[in-house]
């Protein structure tokens, strides 16, 4: 889960890393008051969870409080990459001598966190690493042994930084590494980390990403930051269809009928699970099909859940038929899913044999499932028909229908 800059700065501040005397507000008048309190030139920064805000005009420099108010009003009304800002940060315009970079991320291969430091901050660390590898220090640290300052010292010293600068930077990088661990971050970075004209160091911007799985044990921090449980911080807003999918999943604890993503094709997919659904989605597209959705079913869902999900997919405008497909299942009962999808067709007044292009779920309780499918004339396949072949059959079954999407419009 990503944090807004004003939240990330708050996290940095709590960890004891110096920050500027900034203010956050959603009101232009208040931005003026913050600028007055700061008493000098300020920077107004849009608070959005997307990149490129500088280019989009989301960062403005103001010399007077009146200018700050006007700039804040402009920035608050400015949409960036489809995102409206959460508010603005009013920051003193700093007189910076040099910019540094400090970050901590996971190294999946080493299975340890790694701290990164560069004396070339302010720009993409990726670029620095490529063009000036000797200006990027790296130091892995243990998951179970105590984190010590010497590790940060080694990391910084690798870049050639020495003297009082080194000694002032060590506690900052150490604290950043500690907060990364304490708050279950997957990314914690300060960029730029500024050395001011007076020789002090200040975090001028910060990025934080928290592991979603760790949210339950980080409730205290999230509450302090004002992040509610309902705030998922997805890259884009969920559509009504996707929210309806979540509602189907929530009605019953058995199995999964969620993870719904909308596309605009005409073939509805009730597919599962995990790797199987990734495989099937690719296979349908390779066969020339246009998926209307990506929609996973798994675990051992109840009849009601399978029914609810199939109904949702069938009711989506533009969907002509559905395909019900999974890789060989072991803990999901084939007969239960069969009952659910047939029930959905019948309740919506459709002939299951007509609406279901193919049912390819082999595995546990398949004999019982196939009997039910036979009774309603639904075409099904056993494990001798591959996932790709089943996908082709589904696409072929759709080819004869009258409704077609314009292929030029794409997905």
């Amino acid at each position, binding site marked *: 889960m990503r944090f807004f800059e004003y939240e990330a700065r708050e996290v940095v501040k709590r960890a004891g890393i110096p920050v500027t005397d900034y203010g956050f507000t959603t009101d232009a008048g208040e931005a003026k008051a913050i600028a007055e309190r700061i008493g000098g030139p300020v920077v107004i920064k849009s608070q959005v969870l997307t990149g490129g805000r500088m280019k989009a005009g989301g960062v403005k420099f103001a010399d007077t409080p009146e200018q700050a108010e006007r700039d804040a009003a402009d920035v608050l009304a400015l949409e960036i990459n489809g995102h409206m800002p959460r508010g603005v940060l009013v920051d003193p315009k700093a007189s910076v001598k040099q910019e540094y970079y400090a970050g901590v991320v996971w190294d999946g291969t080493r299975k340890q966190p790694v701290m990164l430091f560069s004396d070339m901050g302010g720009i993409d660390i990726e670029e620095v690493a490529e063009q000036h590898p000797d200006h990027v220090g790296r130091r892995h640290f243990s998951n*179970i042994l105590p984190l010590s300052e010497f590790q940060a010292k080694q990391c910084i010293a690798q870049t050639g930084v020495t003297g009082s600068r080194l000694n002032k930077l060590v506690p900052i990088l150490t604290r950043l590494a500690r907060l990364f661990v304490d708050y279950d971050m997957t990314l914690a970075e300060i960029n730029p980390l500024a050395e001011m004209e007076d020789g002090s160091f200040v975090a001028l911007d910060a990025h934080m990403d928290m592991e979603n799985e760790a949210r339950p044990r980080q409730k205290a921090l999230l509450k302090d930051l004002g992040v509610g449980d309902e705030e998922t911080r997805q890259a884009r807003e969920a559509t009504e269809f996707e929210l309806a999918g979540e509602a189907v999943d929530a009605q019953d604890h058995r199995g999964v009928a969620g993870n719904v993503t909308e596309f605009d094709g005409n073939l509805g997919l009730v597919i599962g699970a995990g790797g199987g659904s990734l495989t099937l989605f690719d296979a349908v597209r390779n066969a020339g099909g246009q998926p209307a959705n990506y929609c996973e079913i798994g675990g051992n869902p109840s009849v009601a859940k399978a029914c609810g999900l199939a109904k949702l997919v069938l009711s989506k405008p533009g969907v002509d038929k559905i395909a019900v497909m999974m890789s060989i299942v072991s803990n999901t009962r084939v007969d239960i899913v069969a009952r659910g999808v047939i029930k959905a067709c019948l309740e919506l007044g459709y002939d299951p044999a007509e609406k279901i292009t193919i049912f390819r779920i082999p595995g546990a309780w398949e004999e019982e499932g196939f009997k039910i499918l036979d009774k309603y004339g639904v075409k099904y396949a056993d494990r001798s028909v591959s996932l790709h072949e089943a996908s082709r059959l589904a696409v072929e079954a759709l080819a004869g229908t009258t409704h077609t999407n314009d292929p030029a419009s794409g997905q």
Partner: protein
Amino acid sequence: MSILVDADTTFIVQGITGREAVNLTRECLDYGAGAKIVGGVTPGRKGREVHGVPVFDTVAQAVEHHGTPIKGSVVTVPPAFTKDAVFEAIENGIELVVIVTERIPRADVAEMVELATLRGARIIGPNCLGIIVPDVIKMGGIGGPAKDAAKSYKPGAIGVISRSGGMTTEMSSTLSAAGLGISTAVSIGGDAIIGSTYAELMPLFEADDQTQGIVIYTEPGGRMEAELARWVTENDSRLPVVAFMAGRFMDEMPGMSFGHAGTIVEGKEDTATEKIARLAEAGITVAEEISQIPEIIKGKIEERQGAAA
């Protein structure tokens, strides 16, 4: 032969009284010659039995009751308690820990893996279905009930390693139907940090006479495939490898990137396209469809045997 487990492997189930764990225990006991599940652990449930398996409060009690060290543990406890359960297993001499639990924060996984490394233990998972040696033993839910697992897994020459539990069975079923069969299949889990990656299991398969080829299932995200490609090249592996990659459509979707700092550590190796290129450089064929895998691996094995003759 096989890797990781064989007919003599003893193991416990941690969290054995949970609904899923009770089923899993039944499935393992019923499979092959019958797994040697020598105990179960659920704190506060000492004195009960699950399908005849005695339940203890602690791993130490289970080890003491068994009388000699226990080789493995299947851990199926809620995410908040998994780290402690795995530490308990390792500190009581367990060498092989299969973690079934999903949604464990990666910091916890990293801690478990580091302790395992210090103690010479190995972790499979988390978020995985475990290990199966066809007709011999299964450790975990892999393949489902014994009679279903027997349909999909026939003994043979191919090692299977998969990031998706369900697809382990789908691919093994295809290999079994084609007459190739499976030496050992391992569901390794798909999380960002896992106990054993493809590259970390390769030396075990390399040393296993029964195994003549490897089939892997993979997805976008992470750099496990790049690590495998490097291992195969650097070690001049005797085993031909065929991969299947799902989720190619995700390359076209936003939000898949690690961000800048992640990229300099993890590399630009996380998309399906990048991975396929990297695998191909190492001589690993990426099959377009699962049904093509048996022919491709057969051809590669014959090619190597021809070259060796």
